[in-house]
């Protein structure tokens, strides 16, 4: 019980000693109270002898109340303490009920010291002042510690934030540069498509003019007057353009990005912001902003774009590798540079055309004959073949194991489930496997429908082994042992003109490759439209070949234009007729009721225009085409007319 408080009290000794202490002293000065309350014998404490009397008579006089408990409380506040009386002590002489209070400074002989008796600090709950001081300092320590901890936290958060900010900034700029890149690519693609279209137009025009200049007899299968597939812009080109135009940038997101980029660039490199603001200048949907910058900035381009780079992003090697990014058993194939000059190989040698595992092909065909022949073709080139008899079976097979097939040949018109619907269903399971339509319905709008429902290519019926091989090479490039693109064989260049123009001299061995070289000669067209487009080349040849054998017979076969329409289309040749189905001769576009006729409504609109053109073409060709014998064409078209040009 040491009065630690005393120091503080004396230090601040002032004149303001409490009334209570003075009253207390004054009360004790009155001798008349001696029997009730008085100084102790030693004069260092006072004693309340008669509690009841004190409370009732003295307290009211001096303290204006009659509550002894209050009095004691007051004393306690001034650090007076009750003195306990032990029986052993001789002090117990004040009586049993006596209360003795003591304060070290409160003495009978020290009236001058009253000022040193002060009210304790108002800490009602912490009675002893000594005990109070310690927790306070501890509290401060605790608080400062927690403050430090909080500061650390804030620091950490700030670090994290700046890290995030950096990352975000990086991402924004990354997105921006990707945008640039994408736009550059789009533009490049558009340029290429335009280029291809021009090439095609030129090629087509030359053919047509040639055709019409010596319109032929109906007899040669109508081949000459048939506006074959070339009358249409290659469907791939058209599609590519549609895709490009169909990708509309999210303007809202772009704006936000722009804002972000601006904000970042205010703190960061202003140089960048210049670039990006250019980018944002034309975020119009569908519009391809003519931003030349990215084109010239090779950093931004995956495939360098430009005349000097020598890399043609539309080259078959690239193109064909893009859509099907399925992991291969032999990734090293990709590394193998396609040899540009590889002479055509005989099909017989293609038995081992695959590098690793054999491709597993699903052949969906309801017709037994077609299925057997197709399967035979495929097994001859070392593919393993599964046959499904209709679309339903095909879907079931694919559902059973989506990864099983490397490619699917799909007939269109089949019982139970047609090929287009089946493809749509297969696409839900496996988006990547190439699905090739096998059909004689190869009018433009049909083909568009096929593509729209997820098919990747078209193999015209009746198909040929070469047509199939070409499809395989195109879509399974990465499985090839020798992934030569449809290669450019110099010797064939001249000849390919012949092939493209008319009667190709298809031998069993070169048939597949003549069109290939045609493709390369037609330049990039190869990339766009190999199968449909060039299919006609070999096709034409067989028909003409047969007409050479028996020139008269074809006349009989197509004695009138009525049947000639079909002859032209389906008629004369294996694969070739592809793009020139009978339909092309129909002047007005006729919706053909079919199993999936409901799919075609949209296409029909699109096809109308094309059909109109076709109709025109067919009129020109068909009505006038009397003199279209192959020999004649040969003379006219062949760069080197004569047998020699056919020799490989």
């Amino acid at each position: 019980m040491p009065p630690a408080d005393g120091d503080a009290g004396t230090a601040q000794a002032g004149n303001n000693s409490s009334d209570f202490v003075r009253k207390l002293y004054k009360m004790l000065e009155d001798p008349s109270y001696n029997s009730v309350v008085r100084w102790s014998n030693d004069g260092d404490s006072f004693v309340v002898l008669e509690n009841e009397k004190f409370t009732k008579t003295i307290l009211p006089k001096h303290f204006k109340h009659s509550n002894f408990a209050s009095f004691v409380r007051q004393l306690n506040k001034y650090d007076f303490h009750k003195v306990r009386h032990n029986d052993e002590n001789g002090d117990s002489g004040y009586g049993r009920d006596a209360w003795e209070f003591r304060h070290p400074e409160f003495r009978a002989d020290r009236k001058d010291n009253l000022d040193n008796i002060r009210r304790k600090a108002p800490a009602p709950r912490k009675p002893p002042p000594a005990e109070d001081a310690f927790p306070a300092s501890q509290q401060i320590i605790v608080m400062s510690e927690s403050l430090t901890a909080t500061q650390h936290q804030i620091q950490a958060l700030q670090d994290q934030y700046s890290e995030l900010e950096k990352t975000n900034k990086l991402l924004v700029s990354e997105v921006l540069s990707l945008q640039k890149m994408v736009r550059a690519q789009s533009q490049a693609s558009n340029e290429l498509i335009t280029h291809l279209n021009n090439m095609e137009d030129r090629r087509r025009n030359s053919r047509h003019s040639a055709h019409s200049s010596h319109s032929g007899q109906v007899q040669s299968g109508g081949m000459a007057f048939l506006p074959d597939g070339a009358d249409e812009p290659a469907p791939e080109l058209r599609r590519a353009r549609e895709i490009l135009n169909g990708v509309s940038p999210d303007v809202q997101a772009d704006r936000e990005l722009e804002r972000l980029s601006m904000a970042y660039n205010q703190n960061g490199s202003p140089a960048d912001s210049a670039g990006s603001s250019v980018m944002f200048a034309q975020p119009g949907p569908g519009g391809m902003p003519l931003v030349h910058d990215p084109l010239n900035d090779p950093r931004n381009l995956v495939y360098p774009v430009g005349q000097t780079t020598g890399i043609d992003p539309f080259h078959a090697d690239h193109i064909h590798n893009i859509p099907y990014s399925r992991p291969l058993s032999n990734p090293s194939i990709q590394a193998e540079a396609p040899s540009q000059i590889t002479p055509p190989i005989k099909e017989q040698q293609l038995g081992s055309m695959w590098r690793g595992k054999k491709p597993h092909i699903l052949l969906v065909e309801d017709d037994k004959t077609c299925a057997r022949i197709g399967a035979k073709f495929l097994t001859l080139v070392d593919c393993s073949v599964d046959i499904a008899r209709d679309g339903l079976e095909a879907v079931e097979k694919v559902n059973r194991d989506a990864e099983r097939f490397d490619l699917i040949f799909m007939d269109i018109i089949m019982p139970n489930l047609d090929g287009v619907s089946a493809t749509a269903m297969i696409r839900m399971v496996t988006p990547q496997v190439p699905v090739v339509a096998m059909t004689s319905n190869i009018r433009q709008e049909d083909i568009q429908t096929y593509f729209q429902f997820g098919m990747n290519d078209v193999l015209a019926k009746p198909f040929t082994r070469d047509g199939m091989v070409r499809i395989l090479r195109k879509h399974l490039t990465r499985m090839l042992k020798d992934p030569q693109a449809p290669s450019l064989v110099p010797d064939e260049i001249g000849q390919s003109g012949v092939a493209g123009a008319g009667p190709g001299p298809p031998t069993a061995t070169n048939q597949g490759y003549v069109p290939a070289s045609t493709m390369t000669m037609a330049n990039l067209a190869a990339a766009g439209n190999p199968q449909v487009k060039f299919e006609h080349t070999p096709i034409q040849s067989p028909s003409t070949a047969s007409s050479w054998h028996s020139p008269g017979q074809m006349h009989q076969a197509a004695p009138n234009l009525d049947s000639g329409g079909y002859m032209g289309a389906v008629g004369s040749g294996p694969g070739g007729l592809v793009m020139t189905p009978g339909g092309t001769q129909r002047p007005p576009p006729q919706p053909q009721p079919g199993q999936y006729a409901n799919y075609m409504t949209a296409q029909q609109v699109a096809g109308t225009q094309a059909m109109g053109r076709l109709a025109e073409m067919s009129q020109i060709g068909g009505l006038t085409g009397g003199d279209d014998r192959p020999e004649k064409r040969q003379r006219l078209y062949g760069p080197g007319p004569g047998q020699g040009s056919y020799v490989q």
Partner: protein
Amino acid sequence: MHHFATTLRDDNRDSQDMDNMPDFGDHVDDQIFSQILEMDEDQTDRDFSAPLVFGFFEQAHETFEKMQDALSANDLSTLSGLGHFLKGSAATLGFNKIRDSCQVIQQYGHKLNVDGTSEPDEAVCLKKIAEALKTAQVDTTELEKMMTGYFKKPE
């Protein structure tokens, strides 16, 4: 003309199938059919092409029967489907005449003329189909005879 064709064959047709193949006339597209023949591993055996060809004839007869039924039921859409079906097989084998008749059947089954214009008169369509079917049957019989002869004496 003839000279040229001969030269073409000599230069480019290294397969003996073509040369040894009898002239099936306009029944058969030689080019296509020779490809089928080439797929025989054994050129005397013909164990791929022969069953294929005779399988086709079987299929053709069945189809003709169904067509006959559909014809008497005035079922154009079935006729069209059957026409399309047989057309595919015929075309794949290079059997052009049958193929062409099938095309006619398919077209009129869709109520279309061969040139693609509409033919709303069902009676006309049925009549054209009946004619085409008859032609197809005659052609098939004729061709089957030729093929039987060919496959019996391959060389």
